[in-house]
């Protein structure tokens, strides 16, 4: 009974977040319109100049990278929303109830699954509409989407942590975005890392998004997997081990 309480309460609270999303559909722009814009912009503006002039070839290369980049950008909103809820006092009610202190945070992460499923569907769907074709089986493409969502949920906890320590929603947005910019551009999203200077390659090699993109290109384009999957799983574990306890602690302490 009590072992099941946390997941059950978290689901109730996830539902609350999802009702909020239906009342505020513009909160989904970052997982719908944003990937469409990025795919279209980069394919048509840079595609001709990069990848030997073939926009088609560039889109093949780009799409897995955009999936990873969107995961990073979309992680901003969970921290911002949490911070807003804490500021407004909505969470005071939850804190006075006999439920686990983790439930509101876990609930918010659960609710994000829906956003990331939507993001994968929109990105891959729009990619197909403008000419992207996976070079592997549908099952592998599904596996790629699964990895994207799982990685996104782990990364959410970093944003959740910032959401519990920052003083204003604006500060959360600033901090998370500033972290995500170097991570999303200092990787192989737009160009192969082999074209970058050595010192930058040192960074891209340890950037978890590089390995996530490696996994996605392997699963969607049939590129060699190498040790990308291993490093992706390791970085997911590290995100959880570091940020879940930090977030729970700072949320519990917040007056």
């Amino acid at each position: 009974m009590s072992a099941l309480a946390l997941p059950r309460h978290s689901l109730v609270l996830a539902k609350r977040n999802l009702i909020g999303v239906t009342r505020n559909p513009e909160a989904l722009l970052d997982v719908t319109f944003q990937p469409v814009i990025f795919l279209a912009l980069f394919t048509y503006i840079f595609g001709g100049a990069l990848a030997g002039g073939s926009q088609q070839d560039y889109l093949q290369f780009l799409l897995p990278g955009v999936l990873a980049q969107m995961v990073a950008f979309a992680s901003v909103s969970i921290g911002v929303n949490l911070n807003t809820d804490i500021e407004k006092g909505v969470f005071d009610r939850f804190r006075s109830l006999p439920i686990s202190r983790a439930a509101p945070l876990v609930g918010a992460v659960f609710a994000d699954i829906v956003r990331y499923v939507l993001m994968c569907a929109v990105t891959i769907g729009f990619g197909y509409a403008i000419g992207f074709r996976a070079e592997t089986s549908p099952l592998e493409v599904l596996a790629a989407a699964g990895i994207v969502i799982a990685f996104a949920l782990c990364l959410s906890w970093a944003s959740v942590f910032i959401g519990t320590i920052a003083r204003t929603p604006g500060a959360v947005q600033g901090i998370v975005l500033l972290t995500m910019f170097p991570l999303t551009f200092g990787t192989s999203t737009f160009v192969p890392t082999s074209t970058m200077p050595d010192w930058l390659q040192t960074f891209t090699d340890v950037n978890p998004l590089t390995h996530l993109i490696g996994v996605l290109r392997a699963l969607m384009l049939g590129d060699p997997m190498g040790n990308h999957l291993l490093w992706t799983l390791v970085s997911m574990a590290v995100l959880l081990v570091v940020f879940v306890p930090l977030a729970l602690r700072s949320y519990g302490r917040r007056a």
Partner: protein
Amino acid sequence: MDYAIEAEGLRKRFGDTQALDGVDLAARRGTVLGVLGPNGAGKTTAVRILATLIQADAGSARINGIDVAREPAKVRETIGLTGQYASVDELLTGEQNLTMIGQLLNLSGKRAKARAHELLEWFDLTDAAKRPAKTYSGGMRRRLDLAASLVGRPSVIFLDEPTTGLDPSKREDMWGVVRSLVHDGSTVLLTTQYLEEADALADEITVINHGSVIAHDTPSGLKRVVGGQRLTVRPVDPDRLDETATIIGDLAGTRAEHTGRGVVSVPVAGDEVLGDAIYRLNEANIAVTELSLHLPSLDEVFFTLTGRTENPQEVLA
């Protein structure tokens, strides 16, 4: 003695502010404790400590005998909190807000919904049940917030300034709710800035100021100290203030005080003097813009209890 709420020596500091400087509180089971104090007295801080939202720096508190610092989870099973600022979820409807709380309290979906409807009905929100709380008026939000704190039928209820911002008739309704909660056996701790409210509801009143208790008594005991009702008169012509003071002073048998700009007031024994006052002022041809019989305001209470006023500019001007 059977206390539902007990606290001794609560202290809490925020940066440079000593919000609580050793506060004792106690409420017997099935009674209302009124905590009376001006802005910044520390009322909300005390409530947040008792409701396990924050920890005191020093001192201890027990709810139904359970220590709030040592077993907060157990305390949360028996309390309901309506904070000073409504903590309803604006994006959810009234019904969804209450159903969610019910489910978090482990009611089945069906029972949570039934309980929600019961409370919506009680708080006159049935018509607004399906609207997002964002569209509610301030008073409706406060009522929804109070309803939310009652979903689990808590035995100890904290109400932090529950009637601030309510119109007079809704305030009466809120008083009725508090009385019926106590009638059903709950213990209520209620904070307020109005002696009148504490007098109407509380079995005992603790007055706090700058984080310290400056009085604790029953309403009648407190009124014996600060004086019962007062008669206050504001003559149209400020030049006739002294004359007015003499007239009402004679009636009450004591000297009238200047308690504000152009206002004199005097403690009175009962409401019989009201008719006499009207008659005598009329006789003297003194027209008035205000003539009232009321319990001392918080300012007057503090003046009596501490010998100085909280808001010198306002009263002495």
